[in-house]
């Protein structure tokens, strides 16, 4: 991979100098989800153990998806 391209992979197009834009082939990559630590991890596990109170809303969203989907 071109050195400049590698260097610019994490930058958005707007952040590049005009001459750098020509070597940037891709938009900013999708950011990875962090590995949670400490209290953040504890909060995630707390959420995980909560009961399902949202089934109706998910079903409504699924029906909407089926109505609107083509192809």
């Amino acid at each position, binding site marked *: 991979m071109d050195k400049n391209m590698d260097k610019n992979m994490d930058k958005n197009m707007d952040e590049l100098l005009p001459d750098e834009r020509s070597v940037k082939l891709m938009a*900013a990559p999708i950011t990875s989800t962090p590995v949670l630590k400490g209290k953040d991890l504890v909060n995630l596990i707390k959420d995980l153990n909560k009961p399902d109170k949202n089934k109706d809303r998910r079903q409504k969203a699924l029906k909407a998806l089926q109505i609107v989907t083509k*192809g």
Partner: protein
Amino acid sequence: MFYCEDEFEDILQAVVLVPYSLGYKLRDFNCGIDDYNQFLINDAQYYVEQNISQIKLLIHKQSADVIAYIALSSDSFLLDKEEKIKENIDIPINSIPALKIGKLAVNSRYKDRPYGSFMLWLALGILEQINETGVGCRFLVVDADITQNPKTPGFYKKNGFDYNEKENKHRTRAISMRYDVFQG
């Protein structure tokens, strides 16, 4: 509850959701952020071909304009073994499945209605479809990009998302957030 959810039924009548294809008016799409416009033109095809993301386009039925797009991928919260011991977390799970919103953008000409929130609603529908297909998935996750707009996390917050990192904040370019599909 999603933001302006009462408008979603009206929006439903005026739009279709289609898989990414070069046949749509992609070059007319302008969300006001060059990087997201370029993604649609230059990168999206590669992501789809490599099964990195599936990209859906929201198309206006009458004008055929691309109103919005969303890039979705499978993801998971990895539970670090040492961290589990340290926090005294005793569950036999090493990762929690999620559906990742990798990119979401709305055409600037269509800011008059809550199309971004509508796309999140459809993402919830896709997650439910995944579960009904037989693959477990619990959270919607996103890394809200703050490089272009510091208000992006606020958009997700008003749509029911919560911050993943309240204590350990070391990111400067994106804020990781989740939507618990059991809580809404």
